[in-house]
């Protein structure tokens, strides 16, 4: 698999975590774009969705939360884009809710780099 061709979008409101996640992905050879809230993410998707392979989506965000972005994505492109929801919520109900809404994977924070990369690779290799 040519990693440089894979395009990941990170939507996370915490700037430090956003930068660190981007760093991890870039080191693995992915093309990365990142946004601070769901509204900006959707704006980007409206024009560039076809080029996106995977979305790392934070659930709790101001302006427009991850739940709204997930709904939009699933309405717009069905299942062509993999979505990994990252959440600090630890309850199973939220996880079930996200999976039923179309998330491919729900990762609980704090994020472990290896788990994150394994998840990304698994989804991109599907």
């Amino acid at each position: 698999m040519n990693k440089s061709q894979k395009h990941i979008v990170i939507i996370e409101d915490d700037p430090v975590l956003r930068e660190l996640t981007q760093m991890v992905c870039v080191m693995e050879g992915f093309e990365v774009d990142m946004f601070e809230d769901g509204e900006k993410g959707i704006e980007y998707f409206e024009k560039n969705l076809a080029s996106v392979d995977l979305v790392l989506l934070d659930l709790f965000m101001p302006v427009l939360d991850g739940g709204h972005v997930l709904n939009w994505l699933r309405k717009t492109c069905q299942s062509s884009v993999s979505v990994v929801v990252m959440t600090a919520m630890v309850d199973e109900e939220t996880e079930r809710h996200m999976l039923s809404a179309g998330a491919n994977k729900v990762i609980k924070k704090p994020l472990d780099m290896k788990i994150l990369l394994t998840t990304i690779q698994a989804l991109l290799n599907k």
Partner: protein
Amino acid sequence: MSIVTVISLSMLFEVFNRFDRWIYDEATLAAQFFDSHSPRVLLIEVDTDYEGLSVNNWISLLEQIHKYNPRAIAINILPWNWSRKDINLASDRFPLTIGSTHPELYADFKNIVFSAIPPLDGKVYRQQRRHKFINGKKHSVLESAVYRQIYAEDNAYDENFYINFIGGPGRLPVVSSKRALEGGLVEALVKDKVVLLGVKAPLMMNMQSPLGMMAYANYQAYALDTLLNQNVIQIADLWVIILLVTLLVFVMLLAVLKIPDRYQLLVISGFILSTLVVSYSSLLFFQYWMMTGYLLITEFSILIVLLFLRNRQNHQALQSMALNSAARIESHWLSESFYSSDVHWNHIANMVTQTLSLERTIFLERVENDHRVREIKALNCSLEDVSEMRRDYQRTPYTTAIEQGGALKLKHTYLEASDDEVQYLVPLNFAGNIQGFWAFTIKRDSQLDENKLIDAVEQFATQISELLYHRAEWEKNQQNQQSLVVKLMQMKFEESSYESINRSINFLTHRLSVMDTLMDGLETSAILYDLFGRVVHVNKSMSHMLTDINLIPYSMSAVDLIVKLSGSSMIEARNYLSYLILEQGFINVPVKNDGMKSGYMLMISALKNTDDTDVTDGEIQPFEITGILCELIDMSQIREVYSQKEKIVEHMSGWLRNDLSSILMACDLSQDKRVSVDKRNQLLQIIKNKVTEVCKNFEQVNTIVQQDMTSKLTSQYPVDYIESLQEAIIECHKTHNKSITINPAIPFSSTLVMAAPKELRQVFNAVIGILISDALEGSEIEVKIKCDVKYMEFEFKNHGFGIPQDQLQSYLESHESLDSNEFQSLLLASHQIDNWGGQFEANSEIGEGMRFCFSLKAFQL
């Protein structure tokens, strides 16, 4: 002096005498059906108008009588038509004694005696005399003469003897002369009896006796019968009376001294009753009159004196007690240091000025015996700022303020102040008396709610009035300590005990009403019992709660209350109280009553006497407990507080996980060999920064969690809006019975806003309530919630009738109370949002509906 004494004593004696005679008459009358002896006299009433009663008829009558062998015959008054010859004739033939008012004219007749005719003076006659001296010669009275004729000796009674009327008017047989002449007499009536022929001459008028009005002939018949039966009523001698009275006084006083107060009246009443019974029995059976009137007057006098002394003693004890209490109470509130110094008034003036955001304040007191006011303390003004004309408290604006009985907003200038200040005058009233006035100004554009300001001012005024009152009392006391000469010069004398007690009572009444207000103002529902479980006080909240579940507070003991509210058994409830009283602890029992909502706790605590002087070895004795306080504590509020704190901690956990993600990821990256040294250093810096940030966040959360969220001073703290919103929706659905759908879309974001849970619920209630009222039946109310970085925005929109935008805006800009409760709540909600640092916006269009948007500060770490 001695004459006065003699007259007084005579009058007194006459009073005694009259009372005794009255009692005697009543006793005699009461004995009229008592038959103690057989009559020895037959009375034949001779009607002188009877045509046939000529001298011959008289002789015939005497013959009729004589043939039945009477013991003697007497005519009470010499018949007018008898000549001396007739007298001789009759005397020769019959054993006749004749009475006359002028026996001296018939000195040659041995059987003509004096017949005593009493003067017609309306008196009650009880006695008959034995002799009469006429021209120095002693004449026997008819009754005594007959007695002597029968017994051949004089009777041994007193010169004036008491006639025995016992047996009443029917005791003596009476026959008319007409019947006797017609042969109506029988031997049984006449034989061995003394027959008295009683002439009913016009001269012989009726007279008053103990048995009522009777003819004189009857009176004489009773007197004659009394002598013949030898049952004259004996009257107790003076020395006997004195002895009896002395004995009675002695015994009664002894009894009174030895017998408890509550039995004294009973004992004296017993003495009086016994005297009546003994006297009456003595009269009936022994024909002895004990001068009962004297004894009764003595007893009544002792009773009155005793009551008077007891009353006086009680009064003195009460007065002494009241004065002692008054002095004790006074010592509590007349703290010299407080009133002698000006410092405290400075504090008071500063406190009210700062608390109520006043511009100027002046406290004025009434000048005694004058109608002007005097300055006590002023801040940012002085009495000089009040024109001379407006310092008379018997004029406006003082009189208007007094009439209003509270804070008066002044329309005309009182204090010299700037135009942008509003002036108020408050009368300072304590125990019904005006002690002074309080004038103050506030800025016209002050944000304070006027109603709340007036409430607070009136509460302060009550306290300040009391202080003023005590200050005046203190000053009065100071003046009382002046020399006697000065006092006399100023015509100032000691206040009466009445004034002193009245003052203390007023004070205590005031304190009691303050205590009532305090009890009613308690956050909890409280009921206070004394040590024996009886209700001492119930506050309004408890009273309402108990009434709601059909319990009557004053009819229940502490044990009953515990049983009813906690569902405990009688024995358990008693054990609780025993524990409280003996161990001086407190007990919390969950409330289990079907009528009450859950979440209440019954806290029972013992109130200990704080006077430590009686405590021995630190042990509590039962009577050091002064009462038992039962409080119903609403735990739901506490639960809500804990729930809010739990939410904060829950959110904190989310934030922490986010921060830990950064730290963990930075650690992982720093260990990756592909990362350059510079990058590694950056990653280490990131870790350091994050750790510092986490520590800071922890501290912030810790501070918030430790805050007293129930305190009214904490106006806002992180609150999860979801619960408030959901509760408001449910409540509004219940209140407005309309089919309206409300489905708020809750975003995935922090749900904490800076507010207060109860007030936030009220805000949602106000907004949703108005929208439901206005909405079309079956429509939906859209609720959109958007989370910005700093603010949480809420948008509520309905499809309804709407009102003109201008009207809605005027409601929201109003500075006065609105008639519509819904818009008043909306107005308050908008003010509340402003106070929390948010923004409120309202739109309405006729035919479209209404839309309300507001933002609240989001809580972010």
